[in-house]
C-alpha cells in the first residue's frame, strides 16, 4: 500500500539521480532500501517462520501428550519421518525440538521482532528520512533471507536438520557420526547462522548509528520514546555478543570439517577412538552462553519497549518513571553480559563461582521489578482503552511476572541442580522470554498496523486471538512447572518407559491440547493480518491518539517519510492527559508556546528557547557540517 504512493512519486520525479529510490517493481517491493518496506519484509518472513516453528511444536506435543496414538495421518507431510508403526521417528523428534528452538529464538523473536520494529519505528519515531545506510539495511534483510532459505532447506534433506538442540553443544554437534542430524543438517545450520549473524550485525550497526546521528531537531536522548531506547540497547547488546557466537561457530566448523580439537577430546564412538586430543566442550558452552544469555534480552527488550509505548498510550497517562525505565533497561543490558554461567551450573563449575553468578543473576530481578511496577503504576488510575495491542501488552506484563518469578528458582545454583534440564526450565523461559516477547511482538503489530498498511485490523478477531492465546499459554506452561519439579527431563522422546512419570500422562495431554488450541488461535491472527491489509477498515492518521512522530506522517508515507520538512520535537513523548490541555494528548512536535494552558512554569521558561532556537540553528553555523556531508555523499555517488 505504501509503495503505491512511491509509484506515483516516481512518475512526477524525472531526476536521474533519484532513480534508485523510485524505481520499478523490483527496487520498490523486493530490493527496496526504504526502511518501511524492509520492516514489512522482516515481518512477513517472521510470520512465515513463526508458523513453521509453531507447527513443529504441535507435532512434538502430539508425541508427548499422546504417546500411544498413531500419527499415520501425518505421513503425507512427514514421509519417512513417520516410522512403520505410525510413530514420529525419535531422531526426527530431536530435530523438531532443535529447529523449533532455533527458529523461534533467532528467526522469529530476533529477526522478526527487531528486524520489523527497529526498522519501522527508528526513523519514524526519531524523525529521520531513512536509516543511516539504506543499502546496508537492504543487505541485512537479504542476508537474513538467504540464511532463512538455507535453514528451511535443511528441513528437507534426507539425514534431517540439526538435532543437537538449539544450543548445539559439541561433541554431539561436532561429530557427524554422533547422530544423523549432526551431518549435513548441522553444516547447513552453521552456514545459515553465520549469515544470520552477519545480517544481525549489519542491522544493528545501522540501528545504533541512526539513533545516535539522525535524530531530528530537539529529539534529545531524554525525549526519545522508550521503544527507541529499547531498540538502541538491543542493537548494542547484539553488536557486542553476536561476534562471540561467530567465533564459537568458527571453531566448531574447524572441529567439524578441518580436524582441529578445540572442543573435542578423548572420544570413543562405537568402540573406535577418535584422534582428537586436548579440546574442551565446556569452552564452547562459555562462548555460546556469552551470546546466549544476552540473546535473551535481545529478544525481550524490544518487546518491553513496545509495551511501554502501548501501555502509556492506551492508559492515556504518561509512562510512570520514564527515567527509571531507561535506567532499568541499561541495567538489564549491562547485567546480561555477566550472568552467562548460570546456564552452566551443573558443568562441574567451582561452587564459589556458581554463587557469584547466582548473585549477579538475582540482581537482574531489581531492574525487572522496576519495569513491572512502572507498568502497573502506569495502568493504575488510567483511562484504559482496551485495544487489542493494549491487551497483548498487559498479557506481556502478566507473563513477565509469572515467568520472571521462576527465574529466581532456576537462577539459584543450588536449586538448579534439581531443576536443570527439566520442564521447569522450559516453562520458565517460554513464559518470560518466549510468550512475553511474542505478545510484545503481537502488541506491536496490532498497534502499528494502521501506520504500516493504512488500515485497521479487526478488533473482534483480535480479542478472540488474545483470549485464546492468553489462556492457552498459561494452560500450556503452568502444568509444565509441575512436571518439571517432578523431574521430567527436557528433550526426551518418550516418558512412558518410566513408571515414575506415568502419573502425569493426563497433564501432558492437557498441555498438548492447549498447545494445539493456542496454535490454532494464531491462524486467526494470520487471517486477520492478511485480510486487513487489503480489506481492513481505513485508518485515520492517528487512530490511538498517540504522541510520537510516526503519527504525523501522511497515511501512506513515501520514501522519506515526511513530504515537507521533518517535524521538530519540543517535548517528551508521554504528554497524555496533561492537566489543562485541550485534548488528552499533546504530540511531540507541538511547541510549548502553543499550549500555554497546560504548561508548567518550567515549561513556560522553555518557550523563550523555542523562539530563539530557530535563529540559533542558522546563526550558529550548524548548517555547515551538514553541507559538508552532502558534498561528501554526492562525491561518493560520482
Amino acid at each position, binding site marked *: 500500500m505504501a509503495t503505491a504512493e512511491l509509484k506515483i512519486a516516481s512518475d512526477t520525479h524525472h531526476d536521474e539521480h533519484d532513480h534508485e529510490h523510485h524505481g520499478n517493481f523490483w527496487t520498490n517491493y523486493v530490493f527496496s532500501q526504504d526502511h518501511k518496506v524492509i520492516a514489512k519484509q522482516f515481518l512477513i518472513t517472521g510470520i512465515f517462520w513463526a508458523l513453521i516453528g509453531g507447527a513443529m511444536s504441535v507435532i512434538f506435543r502430539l508425541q508427548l501428550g499422546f504417546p500411544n496414538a498413531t500419527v499415520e495421518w501425518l505421513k503425507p507431510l512427514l514421509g519417512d519421518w513417520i516410522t512403520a508403526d505410525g510413530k514420529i521417528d525419535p531422531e526426527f523428534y530431536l530435530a523438531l525440538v532443535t529447529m523449533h528452538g532455533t527458529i523461534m529464538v533467532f528467526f522469529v523473536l530476533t529477526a522478526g521482532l527487531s528486524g520489523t520494529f527497529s526498522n519501522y519505528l527508528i526513523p519514524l519515531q526519531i524523525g529521520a528520512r531513512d536509516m*543511516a*545506510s539504506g543499502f*546496508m539495511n537492504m543487505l541485512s534483510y537479504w542476508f537474513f533471507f538467504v540464511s532463512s532459505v538455507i535453514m528451511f532447506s535443511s528441513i528437507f534433506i534426507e539425514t534431517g536438520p540439526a538435532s543437537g538442540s538449539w544450543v548445539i553443544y559439541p561433541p554431539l554437534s561436532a561429530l557427524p557420526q554422533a547422530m544423523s542430524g549432526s551431518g549435513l543438517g548441522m553444516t547447513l545450520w552453521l552456514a545459515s547462522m553465520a549469515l544470520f549473524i552477519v545480517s544481525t*550485525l549489519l542491522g*544493528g*550497526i*545501522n540501528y*545504533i*548509528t*541512526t539513533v*545516535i*546521528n*539522525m*535524530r*531530528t*531537531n*530537539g*529529539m*534529545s536522548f531524554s525525549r526519545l520514546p522508550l521503544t527507541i531506547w529499547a531498540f538502541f540497547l538491543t542493537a548494542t547488546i547484539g*553488536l*557486542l555478543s*553476536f*561476534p*562471540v557466537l*561467530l*567465533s*564459537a561457530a*568458527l*571453531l566448531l566448523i*574447524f572441529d567439524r570439517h*578441518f*580436524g*582441529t*580439537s*578445540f572442543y573435542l577430546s578423548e572420544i570413543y564412538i562405537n568402540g573406535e577412538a577418535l*584422534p582428537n*586430543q*586436548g*579440546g*574442551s566442550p565446556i*569452552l564452547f558452552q*562459555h*562462548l555460546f552462553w*556469552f551470546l546466549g544469555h544476552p540473546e535473551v534480552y535481545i529478544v525481550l527488550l524490544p518487546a518491553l519497549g513496545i509495551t511501554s509505548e502501548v501501555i502509556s498510550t492506551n492508559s492515556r497517562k504518561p509512562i510512570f518513571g520514564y527515567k527509571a525505565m531507561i535506567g532499568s533497561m541499561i541495567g538489564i543490558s549491562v547485567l546480561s553480559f555477566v550472568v552467562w554461567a548460570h546456564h552452566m551450573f551443573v558443568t562441574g563449575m567451582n561452587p564459589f563461582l556458581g554463587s557469584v553468578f547466582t548473585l549477579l543473576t538475582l540482581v537482574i530481578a531489581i531492574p525487572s521489578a522496576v519495569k513491572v511496577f512502572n507498568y502497573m503504576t502506569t495502568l493504575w488510575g488510567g483511562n484504559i482503552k482496551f485495544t487489542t495491542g493494549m491487551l497483548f501488552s498487559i498479557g506481556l506484563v502478566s507473563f513477565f511476572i509469572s515467568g520472571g518469578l521462576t527465574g529466581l528458582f532456576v537462577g539459584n545454583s543450588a536449586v538448579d541442580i534439581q531443576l536443570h534440564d527439566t520442564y521447569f526450565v522450559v516453562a520458565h523461559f517460554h513464559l518470560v522470554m518466549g510468550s512475553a516477547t511474542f505478545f510484545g511482538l503481537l502488541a506491536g503489530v496490532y498497534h502499528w498496523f494502521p501506520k504500516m498498511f493504512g488500515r485497521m485490523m479487526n478488533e473482534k478477531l483480535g480479542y478472540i486471538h488474545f483470549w485464546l492465546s492468553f489462556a492457552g499459554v498459561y494452560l500450556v506452561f503452568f502444568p509444565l512447572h509441575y512436571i518439571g519439579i517432578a523431574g521430567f527431563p527436557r528433550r526426551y522422546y518418550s516418558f512412558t518407559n518410566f513408571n515414575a512419570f506415568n502419573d502425569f500422562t493426563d497433564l501432558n495431554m492437557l498441555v498438548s491440547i492447549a498447545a494445539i488450541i493456542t496454535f490454532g488461535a494464531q491462524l486467526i491472527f494470520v487471517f486477520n493480518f492478511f485480510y486487513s491489509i487489503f480489506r481492513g477498515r481505513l485508518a485515520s492518521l492517528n487512530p490511538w491518539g498517540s504522541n510520537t512522530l510516526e503519527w504525523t506522517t501522511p497515511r501512506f508515507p513515501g520514501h522519506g517519510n515526511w513530504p515537507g520538512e521533518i517535524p*521538530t520535537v519540543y517535548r517528551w513523548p508521554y504528554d497524555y492527559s496533561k492537566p489543562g490541555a485541550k485534548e488528552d494528548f499533546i504530540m511531540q512536535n507541538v511547541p510549548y508556546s502553543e499550549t500555554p494552558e497546560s504548561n508548567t512554569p518550567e515549561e513556560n521558561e522553555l518557550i523563550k*528557547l523555542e523562539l*530563539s*532556537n530557530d535563529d*540559533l*540553528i542558522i546563526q*550558529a553555523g*550548524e548548517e555547515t*557540517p*551538514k553541507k559538508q*556531508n552532502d*558534498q*561528501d555523499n554526492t*562525491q*561518493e555517488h*560520482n
Partner: protein
Amino acid sequence: MSVSMKIVEKPERPLAMNPKKFALWLFMISIVMMFAALTSAYIVRKGDGNWRMFELPVLFWYSTAVVILSSVGMQIGVMAARKDQMAKLKWGLLSTFILGVLFLSGQFYSWKELIVGNVYFTGGNPSESFIYVLTGVHWLHLVSGLIFLGIVLFDVLKLKVHSRNMNRIEMCATYWHFLGGLWVYLFAFLLYNHQ
C-alpha cells in the same frame, strides 16, 4: 553573555557525526568482540592444562615492523591529502598497499615456518590450532582492509581524494590503523602467553 550561555545550554540539534564513520567504529567494535572471544577462549583453554608450547615464528617480528610502517605510510598519505599534495598522497598510499601485501605474504611464510617447526593447524594440540586461527582470521580481515585501500587508491589515482573530500580516506586510515593495532595486540598476546 547570557545569550551565548543559552546557545551552549540548548544545542537542540543533536550531534551529527558522519554516520558512515560512526558505523565503521561500530563495525570495528564487533571485530574487537570477535577477537576478544578467541583470545579469551585461548586463555580459558590454556588454563585447563595439556597445552603444548612451541617457538613463535621469527617472521612475526618482521611482519609487525611491516604493518607499523604501513600505518606510517597511510598517515603520510592522509596528511598529504589534507594539504592537497597529490604526488605525496599517491606514494604514501601506494607504499601502504605494497607493505600490506608484504604483510600478508609474510604471514603466509610464517605459517610455513610453523609447519617446518612441526606445528600444524589440524590434528594436534589446540595450542597449535589456535595460532593459525588467530593469525588466519586477522589475515582475512587485513584482506578486507586491503580491498578498501585499493578502492581508495583507485580514487586517489583519479584525483578524487583531496582536502575537501577526506571522508573515505579517513575511514580507510581508521580501519587500517585499527587492523595494524589489532595485529600488534595479537602478537603481544601470543608473546605474553608463550613465556
